[in-house]
């Protein structure tokens, strides 16, 4: 399968004029069927990702936050089709699929297997669990080399490339022949980062990359990710639940709740002037590492809604202290209220919300 022979899917996609986008996700859906009985009859769907729209610009970091079960991890995995999307389009400015070498827009959700495999060189993933994300039976060298082997790019010079990658992420050349169990959590995460970078990707989806690490190791890893972003001109989708970490690393932040996107804006703006009541409550709930901070916490009552049986109207209305009648009946539209500031709330214009 030669690359030149592969023709990119012609797309009717018109990228927005404003930015140099790299990824544009439109109306992405991922429903998991709930099966019951011997015949596995489908009795319902878990709408893990339900009509999610967002974009990533070249060289930037988009933080994707939300509570557990909100679909942020599923969204990240559906983009690169670890899960097959139920609906929606995922436009990506791909180089490998373009015959001329000039970046060209493709709809990843519609690519066939062979084309998708090629695009995977350009998008990598970093996982949360530093123990589970590395195959215990493979040496560090084999783990980092695997993407090269898969794409038939492993050659005589590759070992040198891997060594320099390992050194770049703060490991040593003599770690090459060691096995994952010999490393600490932070080092394992570095191995995972080296693997992600081995094909020179342009977009890296980081799925909770620091949440399993200790505080001091977390800082080292975040700094490393930022340095690598500069050196390799990477774009990140940074999926996390820790709002302070996301604020630190992200240029823009998107907030999800029960499979829906509720708000997306510049990080600074989102944290200081949120437009969605959920964003406001979520940020006020974060414990501040400052004993003199006067906490005016908004306690959200109840639990996160069940994505297989979500409430009517706006999914957040049962926990929202600003909810009015329309919120119970009509699903709010995700719209650009201010330039580059998107929100899905009926009352976004009138509410005066408090940031941190």
């Amino acid at each position, binding site marked *: 399968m030669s690359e030149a022979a592969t023709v990119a899917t012609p797309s009717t996609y018109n990228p927005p004029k404003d930015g140099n986008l790299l990824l544009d996700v439109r109306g992405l859906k991922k429903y998991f069927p709930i099966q019951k009985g011997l015949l596995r009859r489908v009795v319902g769907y878990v709408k893990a990702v339900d009509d999610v729209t967002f974009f990533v610009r070249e060289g930037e970091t988009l933080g994707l936050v939300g*509570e*557990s079960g909100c679909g942020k991890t599923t969204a990240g995995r559906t983009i690169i089709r670890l899960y097959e999307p139920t609906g929606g389009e995922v436009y990506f400015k791909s180089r490998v699929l373009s015959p001329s070498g000039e970046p060209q827009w493709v709809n990843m959700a519609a690519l066939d297997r062979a084309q998708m495999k090629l695009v995977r060189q350009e998008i990598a993933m970093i996982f949360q669990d530093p123990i589970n994300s590395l195959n215990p039976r493979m040496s560090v060298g084999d783990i980092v080399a695997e993407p090269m082997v898969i794409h038939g790019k492993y050659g005589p010079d590759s070992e040198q490339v891997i060594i320099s990658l390992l050194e770049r992420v703060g490991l040593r050349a003599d770690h090459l022949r060691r096995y994952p169990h010999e490393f*600490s959590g*932070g*080092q394992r995460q570095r191995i995972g980062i080296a693997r992600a970078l081995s094909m020179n990707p342009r977009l890296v989806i980081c799925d909770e990359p620091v949440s399993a690490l*200790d*505080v*001091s*190791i*977390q*800082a*080292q890893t*975040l*700094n490393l990710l*930022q340095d690598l972003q500069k050196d390799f001109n990477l774009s990140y989708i940074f999926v996390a*639940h820790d*709002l*302070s*970490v996301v*604020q*630190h*690393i992200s240029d823009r932040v998107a907030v999800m709740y029960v499979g829906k996107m509720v708000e997306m804006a510049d*990080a*600074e703006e989102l*944290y*200081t002037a949120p437009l969605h009541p959920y964003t406001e*409550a*979520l*940020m006020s*709930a*974060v*414990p*501040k*590492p*400052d*004993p*003199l*901070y006067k*906490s005016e*916490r908004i*306690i*959200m009552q*109840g*639990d*996160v809604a069940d994505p297989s049986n979500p409430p009517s109207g706006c999914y957040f209305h049962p926990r929202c202290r600003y909810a009015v009648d329309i919120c119970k009946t009509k699903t709010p539209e995700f719209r650009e209220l201010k330039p580059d500031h998107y929100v899905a709330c009926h009352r976004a214009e009138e509410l005066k919300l408090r*940031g*941190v």
Partner: protein
Amino acid sequence: MESISKDLFIEVKDLHVEFDVRAGIVKAVDGMFLEIRRGQTVGVIGESGCGKSVTARAIMNMIPKPGKITGGEILYHRRNRETGEVQTIDITKLDPDGEIIRQIRGGEIGMIFQEPMSSLTPVYTAGQHIYEAVSLHRLIPVKKLGDQMVETIVAHRKVTKEEAREIAVEMLRKVGIPKPEQRVDSYPHQLSGGQRQRVMIAIALSCQPEMLIADEPTTALDVSIEAQILDVMRDLQNTVNMAIMFITHNLGVVAEMAEEIVVMYMGKQVERARVVDLFYKPKHPYTQALLRSIPRIGKKSDVRLATIEGMVPDPFHLPTGCVFHPRCPMFMPGKCDKIEPSNIQVDDHHWARCLLYEEVKV
């Protein structure tokens, strides 16, 4: 002096806990000091493996095999619930399966863990968990009329089943579970993560313990649920005047909850201070570095995070002198790698284990 000692609840003095594993001996706790007063919340912070959970287990005399307490003492100033007399017990000297420690565990010192799912028995309902705790530990005062004089004698009896159920419903209501009369019959899998942690708290509190050990109680929970749980714990503490030992690695949580903080590193207490002093005037370089290394919400900056260089040392090859010296930005060659610092008072109610504050001759 008298009043202080009356106030003291738990004193951990120079505690040592060792694990004898195949590859050698790990000093999981190596010279730990801790004081908890009645009604006080003490936060214990540190990275994973620093010995904070082991210390908590030592207080319950529940060190798992192959670990054992090899030195120091844990003084428990036990107050008799009827007479109010205070008797001092060294928990390390108790038989770990004996009658006394079983009364203390759960009855006088309650404990909640990080993972509420695995801490609850899947075949027991929420209510049954509480009945079990209550029937083991809770006694109801009964009034008896004496023969000679009209005199009330306070005695105790075990609770009946109906009373236990009432207590369970009441406890579930206190920890903020909606519809407690129905929820009391729910099994753990029917509850959400936040509700399970509330049930854990309800179990721990149902025997009216004088101290609660909370080992990372909110780490597995979402921030909105975490906020609810912290709220519940604070409310309960205000109403029942209970001491809390709050173990966490989350500096935000500890800043909100604790009055006093103990910082641990490699099994040692490196700093102890009141919460404001610790966050605003940290003395130990480890604490300083830890505070600098966390991203703070609302304070977006383009600068890199300060890091603590290197890794936590291998417990089989501990550094000489101060265990933190290989990672310490204030490392003084010839001093820190030779002399082991002692736990010295650096300020009013502020202790640190660092040679910067110690006059030593090289």
